[in-house]
């Protein structure tokens, strides 16, 4: 049996999955248009055309859902479909005449079409309560609530530029939210509770101590206890210790919640990539629809839509007007949390007279 085992074959070669029009025009596309939100038209040097219809999807889905996707792709796209880097589904066809019926079929399914150009596209996100052990918040549920709220922006190009929202349910930031226009971040706000009995059995004390980036963990002063203690004042609730040692959970149903980080970007267009920065330090953790989070995001998005110049990403807008004006406009009180005090804090301090009253 072991000899029949197949290992280390890697992923299948993509070529077998490409539609013929792509194979024919591979590397020889000439330009694209976006004839309507959610629809891309790519034209090859050959003159060939490829139509893509982008469809918003929950990233958490079932085989049933995927089979429905297949049904549509079979009907209109000769069985070809892809997903995007932001978890949207793209139906691909060289046939212009298929586009409208394809869109109709997608909509009939109750799925949205959009996510192109100056829209809010799908929210990159993580597991949350559906499958991870460190989240402060859920992921799919928050995303559903926010996308319901911002739905009009998915299907239309009415923003000054593209807006990319991401979510990560804990500081590990699996959603790589650190460079998003708007980042939804689940945060814990209390130090770990230590279960000394459990700790002794399941955790290595030196590794646990070493895991803490702020050096908040020390051996328990009572040597007999063979455990650790946490200096609450130095703890910033990162959960690193919990990753190393399951006897140190840091969940607190009332204190955990959401922080919004704002103004990041990834592309190099105009302005180099930028980190997202702390906008709203805390919003309550209110399932199932996280109303405060939805409202705060909408408020910030509207302020941006209203204030930004053409082509300005959220972070470019804020850079132009300055953070203090941003806080004003969004009615965000400035707090000590906003002021960096981690390792490279100095570079965020204002060493100039360039500020506004």
């Amino acid at each position: 049996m072991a000899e029949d085992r197949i290992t280390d074959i890697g992923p299948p070669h993509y070529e077998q999955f490409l539609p013929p029009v792509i194979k024919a025009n591979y590397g020889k596309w000439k330009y694209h248009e976006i004839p309507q939100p959610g629809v891309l038209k790519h034209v090859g040097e050959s003159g060939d055309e490829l139509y893509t219809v982008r469809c918003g999807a929950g990233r958490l889905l079932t085989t049933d859902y995927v089979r429905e996707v297949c049904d549509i792709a079979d009907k209109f796209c000769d069985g070809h479909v892809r997903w995007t880097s932001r978890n949207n589904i793209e139906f691909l066809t060289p046939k212009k005449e298929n586009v409208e019926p394809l869109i109709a079929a997608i909509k009939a399914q109750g799925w949205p079409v959009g996510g192109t150009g100056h829209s809010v596209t799908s929210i990159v996100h993580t597991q949350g309560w559906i499958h991870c052990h460190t989240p402060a918040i859920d992921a799919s549920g928050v995303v559903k609530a926010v996308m319901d709220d911002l739905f009009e922006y998915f299907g239309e190009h009415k923003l000054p530029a593209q807006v990319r929202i991401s979510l990560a349910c804990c500081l590990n930031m699996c959603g790589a939210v650190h460079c998003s226009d708007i980042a939804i971040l689940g945060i814990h706000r209390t130090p770990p509770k230590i279960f000394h009995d459990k700790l002794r059995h399941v955790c290595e004390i030196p590794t646990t101590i070493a895991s803490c980036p702020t050096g908040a963990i020390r051996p328990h002063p009572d040597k007999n206890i063979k455990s650790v203690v946490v200096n609450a004042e130095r703890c910033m609730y990162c959960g690193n210790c919990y990753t190393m040692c399951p006897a140190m959970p840091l969940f607190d149903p009332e204190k955990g919640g959401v922080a919004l980080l704002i103004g990041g970007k990834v592309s190099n267009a105009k302005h180099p990539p930028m980190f997202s920065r702390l906008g709203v330090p805390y919003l309550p953790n209110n399932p199932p629809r996280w109303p405060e989070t939805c409202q705060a995001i909408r408020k910030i998005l509207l302020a941006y839509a209203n204030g930004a110049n053409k082509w300005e990403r959220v972070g470019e807008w804020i850079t132009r007007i300055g953070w203090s004006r941003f806080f004003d406009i969004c009615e965000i009180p400035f707090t000590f949390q906003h002021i960096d005090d981690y390792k490279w804090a100095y570079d965020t301090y204002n060493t100039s007279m360039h500020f506004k009253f």
Partner: protein
Amino acid sequence: MSDTPMLDQLETGPWPSFVKDLKRTAAKKPQVKDLLGQLERSYEEKITHWKHGGIVGVLGYGSGIIGRYSDLPDDFPGLEHFHTMRINQPSGWFYTTAALRMLCDIWDQYGSGVMNMHGSTGDIIFLGTTTDNLEPCFQALAQKGFDIGGSGSAMRSPSCCCGPSRCEWSCYDTMEACYDITQEFQFELHRPGFPYKFKFKFSGCPNDCVAAVARADCSVIGVWKDDIRIDAAAVKAYAGGELKPKGGGAHVDKLDIQKDVVDLCPTQCMSWDGNALKINNRECNHCMHCINLMPQALRPGTEKGATILLGSHAPILEGAQMSWVIVPFMEMEKPFDGLKELGANIMEWWTENGKNRERVGELILRLGMREFCLAVGLDPVPQSIKTPRCNPFFFWHPEDFEAEAEGKTYIKL
């Protein structure tokens, strides 16, 4: 009354509902019913009910499976084991429906039927199976040509933008590079032997549609060296409004070439006299802005390749980093020997020197770019910095003095 009154509220609203979807599957799969039940419990109590993962896997591999157990196994027996399988996606996330249906069949057979399309790293994520099912599921997939992705202190499944398959701007073959590099490093992907995780991401141009600069230890981003190709007639068509900015993707219908394009060029290397657009390409930063706005008039040049940037990761432990330039321009022709060699050198140096849970970018910060460059065989290049140091604390090595003895000077006078 419903078992999941809170979740039920997420069935409404225009965005696709994962609750609706899961409920349908729950009717067939008891573990999915349990999943909804436990999720509802989390919604009520505002905490997770997943325990810290244990070490599970398939024969011979040390990665690709995330062990996951419920802390309420009595209430939700279907979740007692509920492991994740990461399945390495094909480049660009292209599928035929035949392949997708095959994946669905296998996952229905061996798992919960719940999945992510896709995980943040790029894998197909199969969410929820038992320890026993891991190996058979893996082999069923392997028979059909799919393999497991990375996890733990290993290479992770590389990913790429659609690149040449569907985009006119791609400066190299992202799809093939992603495939080829994934194949090259199969061992490292399946058998964790690094200080921590290592990710590759491939974007075809500086728009960086897989966010490589933010979330790949090694970010490979396409770029051109020569001149932006200009179709003068099309430029006029944009100026006249016959062609729409961003091919129609924007909120405005007509371009003001001076204000929208030229004035916003970050290097101010363009000019427009109302008639002809000129670019001083020597000063261009390849930011893509002008091309993005006028896709029918401007295209990247023809001398193409990629920039290699190193070091990005999420904030654990030193704070998030973006990758920085280590090789401004690398040819990217198959079989990508340059990148493979550099990648292997980097992994070797990092494995030798990195501390546990230290990403390669953090190691470079700790030991310095000089040590890194010398170890992997790179020269210092000004493109790797935004600015030179402002502190006067720089080191001199015996080699520097030797070079001086042989006539090296630090400015040509």
